[in-house]
């Protein structure tokens, strides 16, 4: 319990900012980071769809183990992993709790375990891929897949600007607190504090919106000076921008190993299935 409290106390603006900085600018030396981003996206799509097609627990456990190994290799920040586990456990816990309430039994828990396992596989796959990929490479890969240019630009812009925007919001929020008056009485369940906090958080958005509007105009003007819209609609310019994306031997090897592992998992799964016995009512 103490441990959990310690973890929860770490979730504040500073930690999130550092976490984001790390994702946006951190050194990428892990296996997944060195892959061609296009291969990584295909790999991800594979694991986002496959778990939905199986109800056989052996296959799902196999995929989960494979994901956990990859997660361990990718050195994911413990904070992100903790948040993921916390979310999954509480979600399943609530559903089981209410199911028992309606006269269900532990078969409900078994059924939900399959479901939770599917969700976990998908979440781990996304964490492994997206916290390890360079935003620029990611957005270029999407561009290659013919995703609209504005969206691709949005991704690389978002990764770079976010820490600055958080800083700005924090400054505005703190200056509101400095000039504002903290409620003297607590009220029932400290509702006055909560109300004060919420009102300040909302009001701080007023200058924030105006500042961001100005900043956005500057950004877009600077982009247009460099010929952003023209370049994005010109096939030659696009080709030049994306020419550095190349698949190497490493990518082929990675996809090959994944394929072999998947076939092995599915084969073992059909040999030794663990399936939920269905109780007819």
């Amino acid at each position, binding site marked *: 319990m103490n441990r959990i409290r310690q973890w929860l106390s770490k979730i504040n603006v500073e930690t999130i900012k550092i976490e984001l900085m790390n994702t946006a600018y951190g050194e990428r030396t892990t296996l997944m980071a060195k892959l061609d981003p296009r291969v990584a996206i295909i790999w991800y799509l594979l694991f986002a769809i496959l778990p939905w097609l199986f109800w056989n627990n052996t296959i799902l456990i196999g995929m989960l183990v494979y994901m956990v190994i990859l997660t361990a290799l990718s050195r994911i920040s413990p904070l992100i992993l903790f948040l993921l586990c916390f979310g999954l456990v509480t979600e399943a816990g609530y559903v089981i709790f*209410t199911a028992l309430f309606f006269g269900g039994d532990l078969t409900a828990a078994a059924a939900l375990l399959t479901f939770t396992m599917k969700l976990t596989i998908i979440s781990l796959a996304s964490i492994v891929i997206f916290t390890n990929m360079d935003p620029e490479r990611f957005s270029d890969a999407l561009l290659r897949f013919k995703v609209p240019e504005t969206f691709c630009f949005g991704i690389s812009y978002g990764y770079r600007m976010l820490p600055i925007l958080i800083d700005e919001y924090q400054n505005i929020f703190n200056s509101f607190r400095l000039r504002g008056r903290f409620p003297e009485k607590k009220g029932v369940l400290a509702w006055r504090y909560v109300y004060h906090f919420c009102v300040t958080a909302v009001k701080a958005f007023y200058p924030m919106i105006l500042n961001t509007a100005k900043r956005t105009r500057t950004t*877009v003007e600077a982009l247009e000076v460099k010929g952003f819209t023209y370049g994005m609609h010109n096939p030659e310019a696009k080709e030049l921008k994306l020419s550095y994306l190349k698949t190497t031997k490493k990518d082929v090897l990675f996809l090959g190993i994944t394929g072999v592992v998947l076939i092995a998992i599915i084969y073992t799964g059909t040999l030794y299935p663990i399936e939920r016995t269905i109780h007819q009512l």
Partner: protein
Amino acid sequence: MPNPIPHQKKELNQSQQLMIFVLSMSLFGIANIITEIVPEFSFGPVEFSVSYFAFIPLAMVFLFSPLPAALGAPLGEIIFADLLMGDFGGIGELEGFIEFALALYVAGLLVKNPNSRKQIAIASLVGVGIDQMLSTVVDIGKVWVGIEELEAVPGVPESILVLEGISFVNEMVISGVLFGLIPAMWLVPRLHGKIEPLMGFAPREDVSFRSAKEIVGARFLVFSVFFIFVGMISEFMAEMDVNFAVWQPEFIEQFGQQFLWVGVSAAIIVLILAVMGISYLKKSSSSGNPSRKAQ
């Protein structure tokens, strides 16, 4: 990307649309990070939390051209809050994106005059309502597909319906009214006329950004989403042998079913209060409340 919308009274050029898109994306992204930090109050399985600051994207679609603003906001959520925080749901995000963008676009089309608080209030509720209804439908569908032979597991269909019902009411009250409608009514008239010169275009007027055809389409969408929602829930209940709607003798004995009615009546009370509040506002604003415009 967004090609200029046909039948639009006021055409924006590509870079102006990009500007609106980027602004809406960054602001809603940052708002999502803030909501991650706001503490939550859990009361058993019932959770009182701010899931998103709906007033930010709502203000954007009311003030600017609805389409780029509606497309930008959910992307901001995906990039800032989900991708960067490692909470990325992959294909599931696509579903959220479509739901939210559709809801925002419809909400934006419903507003004719950003200074009218009544229009802002209705459009805010409709926007959050569409988003929540669609996400409830998709959530139930997901469990339906994800668990084989769901009706054979006693208790689970009912518990999912109850949890979804609670979260729907909770989202409508907290995200829709407390952090959607009220701040939007405060913020939008204040920003209207002030933010547009900063971005370099004229403020929105009655005719800007909407055509009769689009408005008819928006109204049609509101109704169809509502009917899909009702249809899906009743189909689910019929398929799973859930008997909430049928009045049975043992109905009162079961605490959980009462619980759902508590939720339903809460929703109805909120609706009535909202209608009353809107008519009150309409009266007060018609009795001479000049629009605030800087310049």
